[in-house]
């Protein structure tokens, strides 16, 4: 416990320093937050265009799909905020930043995560929150304590799922420099898949998002519970509340993959 508190203290200091230097340039910070929010609205516009052609998507109304979209985007945006700079891992390796981290008495993943905090990507979080608010206003959700709790839990668990996947795929950088396209295909691609009811996918893709890269647990399954919708796929009802477990497993898997990868780290020949 004392360990965790001390680690959090160090995290706060390291990240605090990064945030202070980002806020030094207030105008450019404000512009980039707004810019990100606007660009991500275009992303949502795709869904509206689809619904211009049809009324429902595999039994999901436009408001329900907006709900899926918002939860998935929000979880992804939070992960992006905290660990999106894992995209820079190849550069950290090349420049020797990782070597410097490995000389310090802290975990390497912890230090890489604490190396930045992309406050400027806050725009994505804001956009997701707006869509979520609109979706909830349009839907008549039969609120219970369980459903309210699940709404919060699914966002946190979803962020954990994305984080585990992101960390695991970022480690490709330990073997291949300039490998981030592959990793991004899974993370950004995963967040895209998470925005749709998985019932519209083919059988293979569906299995993939349930068992391999468990994006279905970010929004689809817990939303069935929150929105009180019947599962047209007839999967076990337990899956609808399994997200926290899947999130924990995903994080653990990401951490294990990272630990293994660091053992294969070969530094740079300066």
């Amino acid at each position, binding site marked *: 416990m004392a360990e965790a508190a*001390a680690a959090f203290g160090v995290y706060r200091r390291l990240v605090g320093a990064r945030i202070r230097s980002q806020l030094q340039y207030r105008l450019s910070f404000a512009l980039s937050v707004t810019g990100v929010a606007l660009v991500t609205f275009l992303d949502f516009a795709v869904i509206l265009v689809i619904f211009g052609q049809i009324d429902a998507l595999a039994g999901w109304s436009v408001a329900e799909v907006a709900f899926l979209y918002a939860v998935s985007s929000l979880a992804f945006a939070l992960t992006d905020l905290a660990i999106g700079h894992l995209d820079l891992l190849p550069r950290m390796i090349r420049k020797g930043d990782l070597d410097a981290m490995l000389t310090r008495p*802290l975990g390497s993943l912890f230090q890489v995560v604490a190396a930045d905090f992309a406050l400027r990507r806050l725009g994505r979080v804001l956009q997701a929150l707006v869509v979520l608010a609109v979706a909830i206003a349009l839907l008549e959700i039969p609120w219970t304590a369980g459903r309210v709790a699940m709404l919060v839990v699914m966002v946190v668990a979803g962020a954990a799922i994305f984080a585990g996947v992101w960390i695991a795929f970022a480690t490709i950088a330990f073997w291949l420099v300039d490998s981030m396209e592959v990793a991004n295909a899974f993370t950004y691609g995963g967040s895209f898949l998470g925005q749709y009811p998985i019932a519209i996918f083919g059988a293979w893709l569906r299995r993939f998002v349930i068992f391999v890269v468990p994006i279905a647990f970010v929004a689809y399954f817990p939303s069935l519970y929150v929105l009180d919708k019947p599962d047209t796929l007839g999967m076990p009802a337990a899956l609808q509340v399994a997200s926290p477990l899947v999130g924990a497993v995903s994080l653990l898997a990401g951490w294990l993959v990272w630990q293994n990868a660091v053992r294969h780290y070969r530094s740079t020949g300066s």
Partner: protein
Amino acid sequence: MALVELEGVEKSFPIWERHGRVRRRRRIVRAVDGVSFRIERGTMVGYVGPNGAGKSTTIKMLIGILVPSAGRVSVAGLDPVRRRIDVARRLGVVFGQRSQLWWDLPLQDSFDLLRHIYRVPFGRWRANLDAFVELLDLAPLLATPVRQLSLGQRMRGELTAAMLHDPELLLLDEPTIGLDVVAKARVREFLARVNRERGVTVLLATHDLGDIERLCSRILILDRGRVIYDGELEELKGRYGYERTLIVDLEEPAPPLAVPGARVERVEGPRQWLRFRRDDVSAAELTAAVAERARLLDLAIEEPDVEEIVRRIYVEGMAGEAVTPAT
């Protein structure tokens, strides 16, 4: 038990070499090829070798950054890979070519962060910081962001950063690279003091023999991943014709000076290069002898290149023979 122990340590890197446009061939680079040595507490050891000899690779294995391909590494009795965090608490590390400090932050902030990262008790940290700020004249630089410091200023910051948590072992990888004469002297003076006054064990990797002159009595010479000499610096000088060079600037061009104990290797206008061995003549005697024969404007003394020493060790056919067993 010695503070540092290496036994038959190897590290090889597979690399892919291009052959023609598409074909690539795998080749193994043996960066460190069977290195064994021990370092006792409180000593100061020079780890010398030409570029690519394997110095940095050895240091990275001592830190636990790289996993050895074979052999055993131990620091304070611990395996640096499996116990990296415990080892890190006992280590101070300075890489000449990359910074350990936070680029965008003022120097002072880096020192504050390190206090929390190493969990140094406040009083201890304050006392150390005050001592090093005084010793290295850092006070005027504390508020400056690291990226605005000159290389020499930054290196003073790096040395302080490496010492704030009272490490038992200080590992330095080419700490004087790119520094001017004054800044180099300052780094060397600092290392001598922390070794003498704080009993810190120092391993100094360098390809500049000037770094270890008067600093390290023991020297390990590494070439192509192997230790080819492990012994006293003085003995090395005696055995392998360790020749230094006195460079003199005379008032006007002169024919090569005839000075006992030295021979003129090169003449360029008023500048002459005189090679000499310490056993034959001291630098002071030589300078006096030169001054008798011509009017002297300026002078400098150069240590031999590592490359030259390495070559001589091979020429004398004593590589291997000179290596004292690491026990």
